[in-house]
């Protein structure tokens, strides 16, 4: 093993930061889109994030479906689910002034329900969540071996992020969405069907979170505890980046990914988690509108 250890650790740090950051950014983007548009702070994001890979795992291991096909199935299955939730719970609050508190509490309720369901059902196999890799083996980055599957996940994540960003900029729906971000009434006056945009943004946000979860399960092993930590991280990123700011979510998400990586080299992953929370608190106190306020 005659290779410079610092170089090794350095590369591993960068790659880890990239993969984690991309997935953070994606998930946080999903959360922040919904908050910016509907004013819905989704406390259940972590549980949704976990739901996707759990279903994927059942599809692939349980029913032996092709991983790619299974992943697409999961995403597809997510839409009607999200629609149902919007229909039953979200929609009725659209005109309530302080609705974000109600939403927050409701999604906390959903969180509790989902975690209850998880430990009841998938909980039994919590040592066996290994989604079959799309690509086996490792690819060498210089001297450093990285699982090809993880590089694939990184690629997908970055592509999705780019697509999301472009869609919000240039696509008709994206522009409508941003119009509603800026000012609901004005958008309505300009003939934007606000409620359709609301529904659309909720579906989009949920799917993006699902995608994040799927990519995470491609890159890492996971267990039920991922839900809470990811949910908190997503919130932290949203708050620090500025609620509703997709750009903020992307930048801060990447940042947090690297923080995680760097801190776990020089301190410990535990400190990393605490540092998110601290960052979020400080921003809440000093600049509730976040770093990238719209």
């Amino acid at each position, binding site marked *: *093993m005659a290779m410079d*250890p*610092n170089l*090794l*650790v350095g590369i*591993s*740090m960068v*790659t*880890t930061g990239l993969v*984690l950051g991309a997935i953070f950014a994606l998930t946080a983007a999903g959360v922040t889109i919904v908050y910016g548009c509907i004013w819905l702070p989704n406390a259940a994001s972590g549980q949704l994030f976990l739901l996707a890979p759990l279903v994927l795992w059942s599809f692939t291991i349980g029913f032996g479906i092709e991983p790619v096909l299974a992943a697409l199935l999961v995403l597809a299955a997510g839409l009607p689910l999200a629609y149902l939730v919007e229909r039953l719970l979200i929609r009725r609050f659209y005109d309530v002034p302080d609705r974000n508190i109600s939403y927050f509490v409701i999604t906390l309720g959903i969180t509790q329900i989902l975690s209850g369901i998880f*430990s*009841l059902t998938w*909980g*039994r*196999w*919590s*040592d*066996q*969540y*290994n989604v079959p890799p799309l690509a086996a083996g*490792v690819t060498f980055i210089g001297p*450093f*071996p*990285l*699982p090809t599957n993880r590089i694939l996940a990184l690629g997908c994540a970055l592509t999705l992020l780019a697509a999301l960003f472009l869609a919000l900029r240039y696509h008709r729906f994206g522009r409508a969405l941003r119009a509603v971000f800026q000012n609901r009434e004005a958008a309505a006056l300009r003939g934007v069907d606000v409620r359709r945009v609301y529904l659309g943004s909720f579906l989009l946000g949920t799917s993006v979170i699902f995608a994040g979860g799927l990519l995470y399960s491609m*890159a*890492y*092993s*996971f*267990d*039920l*505890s*991922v839900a809470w*930590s990811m949910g908190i991280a997503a919130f932290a990123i949203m708050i620090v980046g500025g609620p509703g700011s997709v750009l903020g979510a992307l930048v801060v998400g990447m940042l947090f990914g690297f923080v995680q*990586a760097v801190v*776990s*080299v020089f301190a*410990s*992953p*535990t400190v990393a*988690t605490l540092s998110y929370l601290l960052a979020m608190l400080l921003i809440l106190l000093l600049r509730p509108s976040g770093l990238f306020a719209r």
Partner: protein
Amino acid sequence: MEVRHLKIMLAGAAVVALAAGTAWGEAADPIKVGFVTELTGPWSFSGSSCEAGMRLAEARINGAGGVLKRPLKFLVVDNQTNPTQAVAAARSLDTQEKVLLLSGPTSSDNALAMYGYAEQNQLPFLVPVAAFPQLTKPGTQWTFRLEPDAVGWGYAIAKFIEQKKPGAKVALMYSDFALMRAIAAGVKYQAPLSKLSVSAEIIFPQGSSDATIQATQVRASNPDFIVPIGAGGFDNTIANQLLDLGFKPDQIIHPFGFTTNIIGWGKRSVGSYFGTFFDANLDTVTPEGREFIKDFQAKFNRPPSYIENFCYTTAYVIKEAIEKAGTADRAKFRDALRALKTKEGTSNVPIEFDKNGARKEYIYYMQLTDMDVAKKEYKAKKAFYLEWAPEVIPVYDLVK
């Protein structure tokens, strides 16, 4: 207005009393054992394995006429891998079901929580699978444990490595659970005594899912052997990331391995070592053991491992102790357990407890020789066997 409220409060109080009343059944004919284990939550894989093993023994025992002509009934309650819930369950089994003893936990955290309840309320507690030393700390009166304590495992690992490669460098990577901390403590204590050096020690917080950086750091420290202990699926991640980084399988020593997590490591781990207390591949398995393996395989289409075996054995230890006591009385049962001298029916390993309820300890180290992931089967051969007295090293001082 308030007068009406009195009624409401009274009604509420009535609800509580009533509800409790319904949950309150008086002791029935069978001898009841409270079996609080992990059926859901992070540790559920071992809890449900344990229940499976215990059920086989329960069926056999009651099939053969039970104990003192009374059926032996295991009341299984889920503790959700949550110590708080474990205590609540212990309390209700004690006060509601009036069980003869408690058993069942396979996670040290839950076992320790119940330990407190058992000792405080003078309720016998036979721990099948939980290795945290403090469960049998000096002064323990009511708790007994079948599984050797984890600091001892660490001691055994050091002995194993010493015999494989004198003066070797060892790296430790483990998730931050009581069990893992205890194993690491044992290795670190015995290493210098066995002329070994610990080149790296990395602790993961619970819920970690990636070890790329840490594995690289370990690689950089260039050890001869790595002792990785991840919780749940993370164990597989660590193993595979170590292999990705070019470590040879036979440099990896898993402190423990049971069927599901051995399969989880994957075929590329063939050649790695793992510690165990019962394995279907051992030639010391008795005819009864063979039958147990056959029945289990038929029922769960995977071979049982030490968790299932300990829980299977637990049922028989309880049976023998009750028969020795001649009555289902808690104190008499406790004394019978203390005096018990017997063997595991499945492998003839001796069973006897010291004054603190700790068992005469032993461990096997097996080397994986082949694996069929699809069939959930693996082959392994014995590489090392060790027996030792519980306090060969100061286990109770090493972890608090």
